[in-house]
Every structure is written in structure tokens, then in C-alpha cells.
């Protein structure tokens, strides 16, 4: 028996669309014989069969877009496959409802999508181990302890059982509809719940004992609030599955909010001096094919302030504060399809030109989807720039395991009082989101004052 998965056709490719099945269920295929065609972007690719045998199941139909490594079909030996299904089904199915019954009674519908770490994403699991634990349906009391490493109880937990009994697609549908998969009889191999099973279950819900949308008692969800489902069957809605990138951002943001005690502080900065230096030096930089922007000055000011207030460039590890000797500056880059934070490594060793070049290169490659995984990891401090979209200031969420993030607000000419006269100055707000577990307001403000002072008295000879 071989699973056929959506292949990873490139580093930056997270999903693919099935354009055409060349073989039908029941067809014989040889190893390496073309099996289906996929499409990503402007590229079509023909995918060969990973094994010889008979195509016994197609799990993703033409037009479906699925994440890489999702099982899209199963190839087996025709006779063996049927026998295996028969043998396995009785063994697993009766066992299924029992363990599921208990969790449903205590903490009912939480087939929590955030806990669904795809098997293909070990990096993601490593980066954010806590959500799995925090979100795990209350299998046992210890599992609910926040930030504990996910316990693996002996035997099958409800989650493992669901996993064994379903594909990621089915778990996703189940999550969307708040259905407990372990309560559905599976017609697939080994009692697996197929997409067809769960859709049938959703259509004809009442015939089954398990309610489709169980009334959630208050306090049942980890967050403590009972709220209405996003939509009901028949509502006028358009449902679009989240991309892999979107899901990762969502998980990380919630994880960060649960991890750090976020506090924000906002400073107003006078950029008039920076603006005039920039105007004077712009042409010099342009000759070297780089664009001198406010971000160049902000990066330099942040690096200087991080050196002066090193706890901002640290992480919390258990009961210890880990000071990072290198300053790896993450710069958030907005993409049409999401957000990515490339990292300028050892920013403290770079001058203005070096920082400007580095961010230009990283941003260009981020937009061209050519960043290497290494280039988005290891950041020690982040700058994000909501101001480019017009925001006066942002209240950014920390990128874990960092402890602070600086948000750059819109920079514009404003009316200001200078020496008791009304003047026009180039100004903007800077905000700092920081982790109050280890950074107190006075320290955060010391850092921000340093940034502000550097910008307002910028050393033109350093540009």
C-alpha cells in the first residue's frame, strides 16, 4: 500500500492544484507512469506514480488545492487492498467511539485546528510547540497546562485516534464544522474517515448520535468564551481555505500573545534632520544602485540602541534571560500573499550602506519567493513598518522568542512648536511592543529614547 502525496515542487511552494487525474480508481499503474497533473502559478507538472499497483482511492479531486505532502491518492495491490480493509475495519471502528465519548462530555467539540501540525512541517512544530499543548482537547488535565511540552499519554489520545482515522483534509473540514472525527464511522482503509464520509456526515447529521454542532457549554473552549460558529449551513458565505503561510502566521500570532505579556509604548520622533541628510545623500546611494530610505536610518538607530540596552536583544529561557551577542534584525516585509520577516544577520557589523543593501536584497528576494529558510530565522529583534500603509502607529505583536518589536508609523510633515514658534517638521510615531515579563516600562522607554535621540541628532558622517 503506498500513499501518493502532493509533491513539493520547490522550496517556496506550499500547495498545488490538481488539474487532471490521468488514471481512474481501479486503473493499473506502473511505477513512474504519469498519474496526475498539478498546477502552481504558471507551471504545470505531470506527477509520476511512486509505486506500481492499482489506484484504489483518489482523495483530492480535480480542481482541489491541497498543501504539499497531503495524501491525494492510495495505490495498492488490488486483492490485498480489499482484504486489508475488511480485516482492519472491525478492529478499529468499535474502539473509536469509546475514547471519544469522554472528551466530548467534558470538553466537547474542540477538534482544534491549531493542534493540527501537518506531518510535513517539523520546523513549524519545533518553532511553536506550545500551542499544541495549550489547544489539545482536554484528554487529561495535565495536557491543559500552558506552555508544557505536549504530553504523550500511553495508548491513543483522542487526537491521535483522529489522526490515525483521517487525512489532513478531513481534519480540516472537521475543524471548520466542529465535528469530532472519532465519532464518525469511516469507510476508508483501516476505518479511516474519508472526505466523502465526513461530507455525508455533515449532510445528514441528525441520523448519527453525534451532533454536528454540539451546543458548546460556556467555558468549554480553552479561551473560556462560548461563541457562535463562523457560519451556519445555508448562510450566504464564501469559504476559502487558509494558505499554509496564513496558518503559520495565525498560529504564531496567537502563540505569541499567549506567551508574552505585551505592553506598548509610543514615541513621537522628529525626522527633519534625517530627511535632510537623506535628501543630501540620496544621489550618492543611487549611484551605487541602492535607495536610501528612512528604514536605513531606523535600522541604524535601532542597532545602536540595542547595543546600549541589551536586554531588548534577549530571549527568555525558562527562568533565565539569554542575552544575544549578535544583533539579527528582522524586517517585516508585506507580500501580496501574506507577510514574511527576512533577517539581517550581524547587523551590528554593518554600516548604513551595508544595512540598506541587505534589506533591499532580502525584500526583493522575499517578493520573488527566493528566500532561503535560513534567512527568515534567528532574528533577535524586529522592525515592522505599518506606516507605509498610512497607519499613524501600530501595536505590533512580538515575534517569538524575541522580546520586543518596533513599529514605524507614517512619516509626514506636521505642525510643531519649535522655540515657541509654529514650524513645519517631518515627524512620525515609533511604537515598541515589549515583553513585560522581563522588560519594564522604564527600560523600554530608555531604549526608545535612545532611538529617538539617535534619529534626531543623526551623525551625517555615518551615512
Amino acid at each position, binding site marked *: 500500500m503506498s500513499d501518493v502525496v502532493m509533491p513539493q*515542487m*520547490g*522550496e*517556496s*511552494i506550499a500547495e498545488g492544484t490538481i*488539474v*487532471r487525474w490521468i488514471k481512474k480508481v481501479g486503473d493499473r499503474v506502473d511505477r*513512474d507512469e*504519469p498519474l496526475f*497533473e498539478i*498546477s*502552481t*502559478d*504558471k*507551471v*504545470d*507538472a*505531470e506527477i*509520476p506514480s511512486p509505486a506500481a499497483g492499482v489506484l484504489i482511492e483518489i482523495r483530492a479531486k480535480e480542481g482541489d488545492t491541497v498543501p504539499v505532502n497531503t495524501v491525494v491518492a492510495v495505490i495498492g495491490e488490488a486483492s490485498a487492498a480489499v482484504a486489508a480493509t475488511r480485516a482492519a475495519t472491525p478492529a478499529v471502528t468499535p474502539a473509536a467511539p469509546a475514547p471519544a465519548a469522554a472528551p466530548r462530555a467534558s470538553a466537547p467539540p474542540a477538534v482544534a485546528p491549531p493542534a493540527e501540525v501537518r506531518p510535513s512541517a517539523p520546523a513549524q512544530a519545533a518553532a511553536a510547540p506550545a500551542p499544541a499543548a495549550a489547544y489539545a482537547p482536554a484528554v487529561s488535565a495535565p495536557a491543559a497546562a500552558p506552555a508544557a511540552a505536549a504530553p504523550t499519554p500511553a495508548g491513543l489520545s483522542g487526537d491521535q485516534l483522529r489522526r490515525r482515522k483521517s487525512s489532513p483534509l478531513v481534519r480540516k473540514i472537521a475543524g471548520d464544522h466542529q465535528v469530532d472525527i472519532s465519532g464518525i464511522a469511516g469507510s476508508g482503509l483501516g476505518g479511516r474517515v474519508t472526505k466523502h464520509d465526513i461530507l455525508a456526515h455533515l449532510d445528514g447529521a441528525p441520523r448519527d448520535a453525534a451532533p454536528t454542532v454540539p451546543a458548546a457549554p460556556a467555558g468549554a473552549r480553552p479561551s473560556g468564551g462560548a461563541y457562535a460558529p463562523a457560519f451556519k449551513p445555508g448562510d450566504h458565505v464564501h469559504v476559502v481555505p487558509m494558505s499554509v503561510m496564513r496558518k503559520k502566521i495565525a498560529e504564531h500570532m496567537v502563540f505569541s500573545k499567549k506567551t508574552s505579556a505585551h505592553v506598548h509604548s509610543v514615541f513621537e520622533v522628529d525626522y527633519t534632520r534625517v530627511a535632510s541628510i537623506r535628501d543630501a545623500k540620496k544621489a550618492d546611494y543611487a549611484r551605487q544602485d541602492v535607495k536610501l530610505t528612512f528604514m536605513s536610518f531606523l535600522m541604524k538607530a535601532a542597532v545602536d540602541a540595542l547595543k546600549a540596552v541589551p536586554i531588548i536583544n534577549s530571549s527568555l529561557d525558562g527562568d533565565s534571560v539569554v542575552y544575544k551577542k549578535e544583533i539579527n534584525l528582522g524586517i517585516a516585509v508585506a*507580500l*501580496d*500573499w501574506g507577510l514574511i520577516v527576512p533577517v539581517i544577520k550581524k547587523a551590528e557589523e554593518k554600516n548604513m550602506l551595508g544595512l540598506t543593501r541587505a534589506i533591499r536584497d532580502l525584500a526583493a528576494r522575499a*517578493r*520573488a*519567493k*527566493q528566500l532561503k529558510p535560513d534567512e527568515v530565522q534567528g532574528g533577535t529583534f524586529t522592525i515592522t513598518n505599518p506606516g507605509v500603509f498610512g497607519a499613524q502607529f501600530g501595536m505590533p505583536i512580538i515575534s517569538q522568542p524575541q522580546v520586543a518589536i518596533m513599529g514605524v508609523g507614517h512619516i509626514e510633515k506636521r505642525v510643531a512648536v519649535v522655540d515657541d514658534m509654529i514650524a513645519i517638521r517631518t515627524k512620525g510615531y515609533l511604537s515598541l511592543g515589549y515583553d513585560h515579563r522581563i522588560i519594564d516600562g522604564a527600560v523600554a522607554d530608555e531604549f526608545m529614547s535612545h532611538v529617538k535621540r539617535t534619529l534626531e541628532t543623526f551623525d551625517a558622517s555615518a551615512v
Partner: protein
Amino acid sequence: MSSPRPLTIRRLGVVSYTEGLELQRALVAERIAGDISDQLLLLQHPHVLTLGVKAGESRQHVLATPERLAQLGVELQETGRGGDVTYHGPGQIVGYPIISLKPDRCDVHRYVRDLEEVMIRVAATYQIEAARIPGLTGTWVGAEKLGAIGVRIQRWVTSHGFAFNVNTDLDFFRLIVPCGISDRGVTSLRRLTGRDLPLPDVEDRLIAAFADVFQRTLAT
């Protein structure tokens, strides 16, 4: 450091779209079998509108009636490639690389980015600054498309490829919404440089850039 792989260049002149398809099919099979080395076909098509695999969708992006197309001598062709509707015609250099991306270039996005790079570099030799637009495959000058891309990959052997507007009569693009993108125009080297460019010369530059980007040596 292994020695660069050989690349055979085939300059085919004007080839009908269907002939081009047949030739590619044969060469892809031979390349998969390992009977031939990597190939770069350079050619021009007579006026033709080609539809991508999502033919239903792309047909809506053909703005002219079949009668009007016939009157202008423009063919309509369905293809197996990705992408939406595209126009090919005289003055446009079409490049069909039939190359194996194994073992070190097995990344479809990288391949597409590399094709964009080839056209960006050639544009640069004419002092034209072409660029990528994130999310919109192709090579762009400002908001106008200079080169289009549509690719097919079988066992990491490529077919179809790029279409580079050199002296293309851009009026023909008014027959379609190029690649379903309605708010962006098309352009050509002729429009950007203000003169007709000899195609063999542009081909030379494409070959040099291609060999460089893909690290191939030209077979003699």
C-alpha cells in the same frame, strides 16, 4: 565542481504552433529517455492565440469574435501548458527550453524566476530596466509586460517556456486580456528602444543569458 552541461541551440525560424507542439512532445520524450542533451528552441509563430489548461476560463479572455480572428488570420489553439491566454506572432521570439532540471534545479518557482532573469538580463543589454512583479509571472517594464512565461514540466524535463516581445505588433494583444490580467499592458523592445531590432542579434543575447543563468555550455 562538475563541468557545465551542454546545451544545444536550435534556431527554427517561423514554425506553426502545432508543429512546435509536436516537436516539443518528441524532444521531451527523448530528453526524458536521456537520448539527447538539453535543448533551447528559438522560433517565431505566425499569429496565434493560445489557451492554457484552464481553457474555459481563458476563452473569456479572448475579446475578438472567431470571425474577426479569421479575418485577421489569427489561429486559436488549446495547449497543455499553464497560464491563461497568450498571443504569439511575428517579431516575438519564442523560447522553448527542453532541459532537465535534475539534479540541482528541481524547483518550479526557481525555474520560472530563472526564465524571468534571462529576459531581464537581455533587456538590460539594451539599457532597459525590466523587473519582476511579485505574484505576476513574467518580465515587466513598469506596469507593462515585456516577456511572458508558461511552463510545463514532466519528470523535471521542461517544455513550453517564454515569449519575448521584440518587434511584436502590440495591436494584436488588444484581441485578448493577456493572462487574465486586465489592468496591465504589454510592451516590446521596439517600443522601448524606438527602433526595430534584428531578431538574430536578440537571439544571440537570449542564448548567452540563458547559458549563463542556467550554467550550461553551448554545444557546437
